[in-house]
């Protein structure tokens, strides 16, 4: 099967500076691909190159196996829609006008919209939860609402390929997850190819069919490709997203702070998994590391009555009413411990 969109021996960048070389990537219809990597790795540049909007220094981008260089702009616009990071706070423009511009490639020279065009617009607005918002003026919306309108515009284009640069920026948590679900549904149920550059690592790894991972630390010109879980197992995600002070925990999908006292604390695993996990978070948040009973310098457990936390250590035993109090006490105890002892 020919991929809908592919980049072959592509070198991308601006001017004479190439960011990534020898790229060979492909998207098939019905796939949802997430593009991950640190800032400046070349995610935006790759999306631009894939959309035929410049940034391709050498090599080829193939749409249905045909080089984009040999396709007219008008043809490409009926097949590929983009969401850029550019601000769309255009003075006086309404949500309806923005989303109707998604139909631009399909209208006649006057730009008149047919019934089919209008129904595509209505559908896109409904999917992005913006029905009834047509007359709202873009600069008056919140950043997140405007971002949803930007995605609605791209959806209204009803293209085979959808390329999105950080579509979840500015969105609240609920809408982030919602947008990723919508993008995946668009790929799965409508058979479109969707590629999104994202910063929400955990969400991306939970929704993507495949991940393109930029790894500038190991090799600036390399993109690792694989299923999200495979990349987690291989340690690639952890390597790319960990730094000296922060470590990405592939199993939890959370970031763990590496700075702080790093004093080993034992956390008793009771019957309630939720309590255990929250206690774990509390300890890591203030700079402790979970450890087993023999290595630990302190230990934290739920009281027998189940109403308090018991913190034991060289500085004495305390009964604390909430995890907030536990955190405060841990900080005091960590500060008292000398750096030498904490090693």
């Amino acid at each position, binding site marked *: 099967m020919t991929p809908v969109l592919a980049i072959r021996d592509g070198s991308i960048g601006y001017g004479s500076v190439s960011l990534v070389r020898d790229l060979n990537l492909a998207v098939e219809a019905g796939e949802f691909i997430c593009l991950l990597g640190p800032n400046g790795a070349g995610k935006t540049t790759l999306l631009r190159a894939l*959309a035929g909007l410049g940034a391709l220094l050498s090599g080829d981008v193939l749409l249905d196996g045909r080089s984009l260089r040999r396709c007219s702009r008008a043809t490409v616009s009926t097949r*590929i829609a*983009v969401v850029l990071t550019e601000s769309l706070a*255009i*003075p006086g*423009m309404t949500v309806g006008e923005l989303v109707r511009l998604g139909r631009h490639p399909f209208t006649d*020279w*006057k730009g008149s919209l047919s019934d089919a065009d209008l129904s595509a617009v209505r559908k896109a607005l409904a999917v992005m939860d913006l029905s009834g918002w047509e007359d709202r003026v873009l600069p008056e919306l919140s950043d997140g609402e405007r971002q949803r309108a930007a995605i609605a515009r791209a959806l209204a284009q009803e293209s085979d390929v959808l390329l999105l640069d950080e579509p979840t920026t500015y969105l609240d948590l609920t809408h982030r997850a919602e947008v990723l679900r919508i993008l995946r549904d668009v790929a799965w149920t409508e058979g479109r190819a969707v590629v999104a550059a994202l910063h929400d690592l955990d969400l991306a790894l939970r929704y993507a069919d495949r991940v393109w991972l930029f790894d500038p630390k190991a090799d600036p010109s390399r993109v690792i490709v694989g299923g999200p879980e495979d990349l987690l197992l291989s340690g690639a995600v952890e390597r790319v997203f960990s730094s000296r002070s922060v470590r990405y925990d592939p199993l939890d999908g959370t970031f763990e702070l590496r700075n702080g006292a790093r004093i080993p604390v034992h956390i008793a695993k009771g019957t309630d998994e939720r309590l255990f996990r929250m206690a774990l978070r509390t300890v890591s948040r203030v700079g402790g590391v979970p450890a087993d009973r023999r290595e630990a310098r302190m230990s934290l457990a739920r009281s027998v009555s189940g109403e308090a936390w018991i913190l034991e250590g060289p500085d004495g035993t305390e009964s604390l009413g909430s995890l907030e109090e536990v955190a405060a006490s841990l900080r005091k105890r960590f500060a008292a411990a000398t750096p030498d002892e904490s090693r």
Partner: protein
Amino acid sequence: MKDRIRRHLLSLFVVLAAGLFVAELFWGTSFVSAGNVVAALSGRLPPDAGATRIVIDVRLPRAVSALLCGAALSVSGILMQTLFRNPLAGPDVLGVTSGASLGVALSILGAKAFAGFGASPLLDLGLGGGAILGALLSMSVVLAAARHVRDGAGLLVFGVMFGFAVSALVSVLLSWALPDQVQRYVAWGFGSFASSGWDRVRGLGVVMIVALAASIPLMKPCNALLLGETYAASLGVDVRFIRFAVICVASVLAGLTTALSGPVAFIGIAAPHMCRMMASSTDHRIVLPLGIAAGGVVALLADLGTRLGGSTVIPLNVVTSLLGAPFIIWLILAGGRRSRI
């Protein structure tokens, strides 16, 4: 519903323009009875009668010139505001009018040098051509600057400074001119729709109508350009070609207006905003036709305003500035809050 209101808005402006056009023919500094105006228009008076002279040779070309120049300035303003993605752009603000003035000054001085060939149509051709070239050049300079100045306010300041510099250049040129030429140039600088006789209106007007017509197919790509050049390209717009076309049409319109009626201020920036606010839309398919009608209405109103002083004629630019400047100031203060600017 909204579409109906917009269509009514367009009809309203067309009717208003027609009404004001007729008022131009019936009302002027010298008295002609209504009966004689009608008689002159219908050709029932001899061509050398006083009323015919006034109505056919003075008032009619003046009304046509006001209508055309208003429409041209308005469309030119709409195109520039879209091209520069700057709601306060306009031919006068960006120094395009000054560039056209330089072209006019050069062609007047040139005409002096070739005084022997002073045939009027040739002079008009030089005047119009000079103004268009001046407008094109200055617009290219501002566009080149826009690539380096990302900030909208910075670009406007650049345009205003550029305009000052070009105007200063014109002043330097004028030091070589004869006193009566200087006087004519200064008077021309006040702006007036009256100074253009039939010959000039006919010659430049045809080109203006062609340029106005050429703006119609630009409506759709201009809508995409509102989103920025990258989005426009992703929607299939040939950005380089459209940018070139928009520059050409906007420069021709601004240049010819300047050649015909002097550097008229404010209509080019105010009329587009009036249309966008009334139609509450940025869609060029709505705003541009409305802008043609509304520009004509504003220019005709301003021209009628110059006659309010009775026997003393108030300069056109005084009227447009008195009306336009407060409107723009209000727009910046109130419009900013309503996200219009």
